[in-house]
């Protein structure tokens, strides 16, 4: 694990099945009926951004592309719309990851916000370019809420890595 400036503990290596599991759970969360509420964040974008920052060797643009295809089919939108946005999101967050992790969590959330907003803006621009109607400003509230969720998401998604393999009272970490 990359040692972070503000981190006081050494994390366990991530388990690949947990990355897979969390991405699948994000997809399922996007399928819930609650996804129609305005301001509901795009869970896939959030989790994908998180793993692209933390583990860009494991979760990269390939994953982003596949998840984008899944979301396109599930949403009934034009194929390629989510793919394009997610691939860009994965690339940019992976290339910024060395920078991100030096900041405390609240500031990380602040830096994630433009990425998530850009993901929505790209999708809107793609659809506007081919003649769709503007979906309203509520569409852009979702990424703001999603970036606030960066803080709890970090705790939840890193939870399996906090647990030590063997407890040893003599070694505090």
């Amino acid at each position, binding site marked *: *694990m*990359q040692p972070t400036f503000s981190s006081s503990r050494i994390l366990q290596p991530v388990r690949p099945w947990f990355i897979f599991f969390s991405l699948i759970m994000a*997809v*399922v969360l*996007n*399928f*819930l*009926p609650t*996804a*129609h509420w305005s301001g509901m964040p795009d869970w896939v974008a959030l989790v994908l951004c998180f793993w692209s920052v*933390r*583990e*860009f*060797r494991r979760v*990269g*643009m*390939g994953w*982003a*592309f596949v998840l*984008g*295809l*899944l979301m396109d*089919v*599930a*949403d*009934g*939108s*034009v*194929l*390629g*719309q989510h*793919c*394009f946005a997610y*691939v*860009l999101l994965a*690339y940019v967050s*992976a*290339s910024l990851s060395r920078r991100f992790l030096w900041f405390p969590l609240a500031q990380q959330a602040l830096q994630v916000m433009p990425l998530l907003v850009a993901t929505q803006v790209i999708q809107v621009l*793609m*659809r506007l370019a*081919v*003649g*769709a*109607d503007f*979906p*309203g400003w509520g*569409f852009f509230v979702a990424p703001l809420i999603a970036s606030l969720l960066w803080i709890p998401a970090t705790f939840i998604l890193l939870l399996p890595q906090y647990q030590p393999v063997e407890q040893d009272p003599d070694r505090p970490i």
Partner: protein
Amino acid sequence: MAGINHAPPPFFKQGPAPLALLTFYIAISLAIFVVDLRFRSLELLRQSIALVVDPVQRVAQTPGSLVDYAATYLQGLQALQKENSELKHAQLSTAPNLQRLAQLEAENDRLRKLLTVKEREKANGQVAQILYTARDPFSRKVIVDKGQQSGITAGQPAIDETGVVGQVTRVFPFSAEITLITDKDQAVPIQVVRNGQRSVVFGLGNGQLELRYMPANADIQVGDLLVTSGLDGVYLPGFPVAKVVNIERDSAYSFARIFCVPIAGVENFGEVMVLDPRTPLPAAPPDSASRGSDSSEKNGQRPKKKRAAKGN
């Protein structure tokens, strides 16, 4: 993530450079975006992905439907009895017309044969349950629980108990996507009941519909009922589509802006009837088909204008 102090950097197994990968994926994304939008030739890909996604989506919808079920269960006996008595009453009030329907249809058939007019097509179909609305905020679509396995094909119209709901636009193995008539630019050929004037009504994307290209002095009034004209070979004639709610006649424009609301419960959840495809209309006369393709749009509009002028 192999940091510098864990292992020697893997020089030779990093795969393509990130920028190259990015270019590759973006090129593919844009290519399928254009192909899907313009040529609609990726339905097979969509169907095969839907085969994986669809079961997960149905499972994800179950909590919501369980809550609905619990709500109706707790609604109680009294509400159900009230509804039941109302339905019985409604049935009784339609009974005089319905009971004579068979006789009327037979009579109609006989008279049409006497006049050597083509027989009216009968509306048959299958009931489908709306599963969920598509999450795409740019369009108005719903997914129903019948698909290729039930013989649904793209293009079939869908109605509910009061009027036209939409049209099947995509078919998956076990589900189908219905584009609602309120979707942006979804067109339904209609006829005004009061005076028989033909036109086409377009969805606006905000829950309303608009009658476009009607002259400012067209004989349309607020409250006019629009029914399908059947000229398109898709919708059977006579199904209620929309009601005119607002007309803006501005002398600065040559067309009136006529807004309508759908008759059917387009935004409701429930069941829809997917009507069987119509028997194809006779082929268009060769005259219009043999015209040049470069000016086809102009040619397509000209006869419509003539007809509208005659109607006035």
